[in-house]
């Protein structure tokens, strides 16, 4: 059980580290959104599952259920926030990176 929890923590920290590296290194806001939202969602879900297993191991099943409820909340909330932010930034006119090859939202707006 401890090994499983350690693996969950390590995988979650790896994905969160990938999100942070992407936030620092990526060239524009949309690439940063791409790296941050997906990696943060998966990484935090793995860590929260590990913490729920730890609570369950300690014999506190209600707390484990609450932690899993927070996991479900994070799973719903993070993509919604990123989507709203990307849409608002595009409408506001934050420029795309000059190396961008496809812009389907803009093409759809022109039609």
């Amino acid at each position, binding site marked *: 059980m*401890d090994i499983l*929890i*350690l693996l969950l*923590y390590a995988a979650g*920290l790896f994905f*969160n*580290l990938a*999100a*942070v590296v992407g*936030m*620092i290194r990526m060239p524009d*806001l949309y690439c*940063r*959104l791409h790296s*941050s939202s997906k990696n*943060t969602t998966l990484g*935090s879900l793995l*860590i*929260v599952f590990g*913490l729920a297993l*730890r*609570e369950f191991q*300690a014999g506190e099943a209600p*707390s484990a259920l*609450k*932690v899993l*409820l*927070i996991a479900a*909340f*994070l799973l719903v*909330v*993070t993509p*919604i*926030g*990123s989507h*709203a*932010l990307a*849409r*608002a*930034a595009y*409408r*506001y006119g*934050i420029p795309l990176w000059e190396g961008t090859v496809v812009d389907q939202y803009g093409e759809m707006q022109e039609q």
Partner: protein
Amino acid sequence: MGATHHDLEYVLTFLLALLAMPMLYRLWRGPSTGDRVLALETIGVFGVLVLLALSVIAERTIYLDLAVLLALFSFLGTLVIARYLERGLIQ
């Protein structure tokens, strides 16, 4: 509250707090408001995880409620700022 069987959670808390530091750089430097909001949202998620780990370490259930509140208000703040940004009410 034993320090012996929660070593993993201590390390996890420390590493998560360490991961939030580059987000402070993005918050300070970010070229647009969207970058700053995104950095704040990421810091909020890390804060939620730190609170959950602290609740496991200290064996206190009240930190779970704090984590729920932090996640909720971080999400609401992102939505509100995105809405103002979309209407062009803030720079």
